[in-house]
């Protein structure tokens, strides 16, 4: 194989792997948006908290992030649920940007509180299992990234099945379709909103845990991901599950190819260019029916 193809395939592989993570980050956001029609700006901060959960559990107890991601899910599910119940539910029926402002305030407080507690330093962990790189032919694949990718896909599919098959999942989808109708058929909207926000938050916590083996932990890490997740959601179509998955992969690929051919700090720039092109030519995203 020529070098050109090796480099290209390498870029595609790395891009898809990262794209899986972006997709998972976006799935939580799109789930919450689809059902509650709100955007959680603290989404990135929740991811950061998931990362710290796994980081400390590894440092203190040697617990591998692939195990501690369960704890991340629980911690963030509870935190998300509490925030929904005691803060967001109070202003849900006011102007839509109020939730965004409130969660912006939360993320500001959370990020800086974490920076105060554990300093702004970048921290990394090196688990001994599921580490290193594997070679498929001449293509290099980072094992933790591959794991994260596979787990992301599994989790996305699992979440999809949960929404499709379980009673709670069906209620969530019913609310997403028609909130008044769901109310009249006796769905407890308060409870479902809480569960939905909890799951959305839990999922982003898991995404945080999964990337700790290869992504440095820091208090500000969330702010990078929240914008990417938002752009993925817009690209995929607001509230669309498979759109988030596809959008994530596209953004991952684009960033990786940009980084391969134009090394430098511009890779995020490509994400924003895609965002603007989406607004210009396909504002409803891949799977969106209506624009915002």
């Amino acid at each position, binding site marked *: 194989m020529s070098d050109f193809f090796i480099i290209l395939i390498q870029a595609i592989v790395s891009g898809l792997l990262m794209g899986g993570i972006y997709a998972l980050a976006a799935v939580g956001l799109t789930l919450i948006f689809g059902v509650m029609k709100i955007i959680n700006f603290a989404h990135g901060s929740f991811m950061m908290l998931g990362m710290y959960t796994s980081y400390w559990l590894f440092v203190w107890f040697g617990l591998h992030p692939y195990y501690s991601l369960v704890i991340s899910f629980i911690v963030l599910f509870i935190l998300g649920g509490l925030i929904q119940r005691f803060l967001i539910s109070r202003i849900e029926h006011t102007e*839509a940007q109020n939730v965004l402002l409130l969660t912006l305030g939360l993320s500001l407080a959370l990020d800086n*509180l974490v920076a105060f507690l554990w300093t702004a330093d970048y921290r990394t962990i090196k688990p001994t299992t599921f580490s290193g790189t594997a070679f498929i032919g001449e293509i290099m694949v980072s094992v933790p990234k591959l794991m994260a990718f596979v787990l992301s896909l599994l989790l996305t599919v699992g979440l999809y099945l949960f929404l499709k098959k379980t009673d709670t999942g069906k209620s969530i989808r019913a609310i997403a379709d028609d909130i008044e109708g769901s109310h009249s058929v006796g769905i407890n909207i308060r409870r479902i909103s809480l569960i939905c926000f909890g799951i959305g938050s839990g999922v982003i916590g898991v995404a945080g845990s999964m990337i700790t083996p290869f992504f440095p932990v820091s208090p500000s890490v969330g702010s990078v991901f929240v914008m990417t997740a938002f752009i993925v959601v817009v690209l995929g179509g607001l509230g669309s599950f498979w759109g988030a998955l596809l959008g994530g992969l596209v953004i991952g690929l684009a960033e990786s190819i940009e980084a391969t051919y134009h090394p430098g700090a511009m890779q995020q720039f490509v994400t924003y*260019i895609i965002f603007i092109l989406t607004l210009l030519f396909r504002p409803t995203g891949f799977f969106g029916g209506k624009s*915002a």
Partner: protein
Amino acid sequence: MRNVLTLNHRILAKIVAFFLLVVFLVLPVANPVYLHILIMALLYAYLGSCWNILSGYTGQFSFGHTLFFGVGAYVSTILFVKLGISPWLGMWLGALLSMVISLFIGFLCFRYGLKGPFFALATLAFAEMFRIGANNLDITNKASGILIPMTGTSITTFQFHEKGVYYGIIIVFNVIIILITFFIQRSRLGDYFEAIREDEEAAQSLGIDTFKYKLVALAISAFLTALGGTFYAQYSLYLDPHICFGVGNSIEILIRPILGGIGTILGPVIGALCLAPVSEFAREVLRGWSGAYLIIFGVILVVAILFLPDGIVGFVKKHFFQIKMEGEGR
């Protein structure tokens, strides 16, 4: 009832006047540190007022307003440092460029009906683009930023050794923006802006070209915000992409009007004056803890959204004057 109200008004007016006199005249003379704090508070009162025209009156929340601030700051600074063009001239060019950029962004966003949180995040995305751009371009001197050489006090270079001059300038800026807001609120334009904020469909059905007037609000806001950017550049004599285009500055711009009361003439100024002692306390007293004021900002934002939906101005009007918001609006 009527008499009690007027009496209350009078006493309150005297107290406020006395308080303002102390804050604006006595404190800065007493200690130059207060002067700096006041200049910064008034700068953000000004920027908040600019934001307020778009977000408070027209209801289009911008989370990326620092973009216009940054464009103003960079344009006048680059023209000054590289070509020797006076910032007094550069600031208008920066404002014009900022307006053009805002029209482009607004065109993209409003054409597809991006509203509320989506418009907010889209503006943030645009500001981030500029931050990444400024971090990587030679003309902005990448991440190291631009140090503006101090060439000595001169009117033409917009540089003064005396902080008092900056203080005077920023007071003039504030007087002008308050007058602009006042005239907008009293004009047809203000009615259109508020109609769009209150109910866009109803506004359309009454013949208001909502797309056009949202762009008008955005353009005015962007133009004026950029002027504040130039002021900041000439006052601090240093710029970098993070200060000019970072999310943090966008939050700084919007938090004061939200605290003070959006869609009111004095809300941003009142918010800025109330926030100044809090953030200075956090910055000075909790000096070892650099993010402390941001935690406080975050908490203030949460509390303001939950408990002060109409800001301090709305709260005071409701509880002390027993008149409804806008009840006296003409």
